[in-house]
């Protein structure tokens, strides 16, 4: 059996109308079933543009010059309508107000299902399932405009989940939220990834609190994909800028520097510390400190 990636980009290139520079240039990558991909890059590097090519918003709704091919489950999306793609890929934007429209949270979640003329009972069942999954019981009858930003974002996620798409895309979904709400949303996304096998692509600036869930990092710079792979591999790629290191990794690097690669410690300790993988998350950092305290 041949392996079919869930998402495949082949030489994807895009230039917005009236712009001289390409927003995306020959982007190639493949995402496997169950991956959790974190899309990283400076402001203006092309993150949102790249995400918009995944569900056909580009080139169908943005004018410009498009080249290359995007395949979902081996099928090119070029000929497909964005509405059809909604069954395969759920999209959550940065600002939930851009996508909420119904009178109640419940209706918002039911909306995509109604659009596909799914039987009433089935809609009922599916909506209840999502409300329970995202803990939205308390606000299900409220207007999407009378709830908090975090709740709005959860509602938008609920609506993206309605058609049970195997792929979920999040464009800086948590950046408008308070830290606690943001963490809650990321945990929920990680749960969908782990427990329901959803393939996730997420763009984010807060690396430290997300990396624990991530299987791959895609680093994009000036519209070009400069590195793609497991987090530690990408961080060590020479194209990856130090400034975009997770805070924890950067603290570790500084610690390594001031201790002269741990050479100020006894040799046994030094070896021990160097054997611990470089920390990316708070838990990793604890392991590292533990490594420095326990004998071999």
């Amino acid at each position: 059996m041949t392996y079919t990636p869930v998402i495949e980009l082949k030489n994807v290139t895009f230039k917005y109308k009236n712009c001289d520079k390409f927003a995306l240039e020959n982007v190639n990558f493949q995402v496997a079933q169950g991956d959790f991909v974190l899309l990283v890059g400076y402001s203006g590097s092309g993150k949102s543009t790249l995400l918009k090519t995944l569900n056909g918003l580009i080139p169908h709704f943005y004018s410009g010059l498009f080249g290359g091919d995007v395949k979902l489950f081996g099928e090119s999306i070029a000929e497909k309508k964005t509405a059809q793609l909604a069954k395969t890929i759920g999209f959550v934007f940065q600002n939930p107000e851009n996508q909420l429209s119904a009178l109640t949270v419940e209706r918002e979640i039911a909306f995509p299902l109604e659009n596909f003329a799914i039987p009433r009972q089935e809609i009922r069942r599916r909506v209840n399932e999502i409300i329970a999954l995202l803990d939205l019981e308390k606000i299900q009858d409220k207007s999407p405009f009378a709830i908090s930003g975090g709740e709005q974002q959860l509602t938008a996620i609920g609506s993206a989940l309605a058609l049970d798409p195997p792929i979920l895309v999040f464009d800086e979904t948590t950046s408008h939220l308070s830290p606690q709400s943001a963490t809650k949303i990321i945990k929920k996304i990680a749960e969908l990834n782990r427990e329901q096998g959803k393939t996730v692509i997420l763009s984010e600036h807060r690396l430290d609190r997300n990396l624990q869930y991530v299987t791959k990092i895609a680093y994009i710079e000036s519209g070009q994909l400069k590195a793609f792979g497991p987090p530690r591999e990408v961080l060590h790629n020479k194209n990856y800028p130090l400034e975009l290191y997770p805070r924890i990794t950067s603290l570790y690097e500084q610690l390594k520097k001031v201790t002269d690669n741990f050479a100020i410690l006894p040799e046994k300790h030094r070896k021990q510390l160097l054997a611990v993988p470089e920390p990316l998350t708070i838990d990793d950092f604890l392991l590292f400190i533990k490594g420095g305290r326990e004998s071999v």
Partner: protein
Amino acid sequence: MIEFRDVYFRYAKKNPDVLKGISFKITDGELVALVGKNGAGKTTLLKHIIGLLKPTKGEVWINNENIIKKPISELAQTVGLAFQNPNHQLFAETVEKELAFGPKNLGMPEEEQERMVQKIAENFNITHLLQKSPLELSGGERRLVSIASVLTMGQKILVLDEPTFGQDYRQKKRLGTYLCDLRNKGITVFIVTHDIDFILDYFPRVIVLVDGQIIADGESKTILQDELLIQQADLEKPILLEIQEKVAKMTNQEYLPATSEVEFIEKFKDILLQAASQEGKK
């Protein structure tokens, strides 16, 4: 100087109070961050500083003057504001014109305008965007331009609503350092933010607003360690502090956190050395 004296505010007579007896004083050259849940009244409070809203009760004083009767246009020469959503603010054909708009309106000579725009653009590393239309920019870039366009006006008080939205680490560092420099020039910076790491790194004072009332006002490194306040304001501990708290727990040591990166590195260097020397004694 910004001073609130027992300020109350409600949007309509029959509505409940959004601000309930707000009092604080900020002196020249202070960097202050306002935090609180969505809906706590942060943006409402901020609009009082620029005179967009007037208190239902109480007084707002800017530079020793009660601003109740001061026209917004006059106040705008003292107080600059960057909105939360840059799309509400950007309108010029190019970024360069956007940046020059404020100084031009304030009657700054053309040469000086150009110099100002160039300087700000360099400081923010956006010279490559100057000839672009603000509409061509990414979300993060727009945010930066909207802040830069306020800074070109040279006011003594700056009010920034969520300045780090969509900014990567590099830009945040630039912004933070720039704001700290302004402080040395006696410029007061007041921001509303959820970005706790940014506060700990650059903003010495924080005011916590919950349900229209100030529940804490003081040193950020103290307040950002207060579990209860953090919960009430829907915040999280800064990464720097969270690591140290967990390490203290793991090693059964007292939690006495370093609050800057430099101190943090020194502290952990000591921790490693200590562990090694204890090991040596065994």
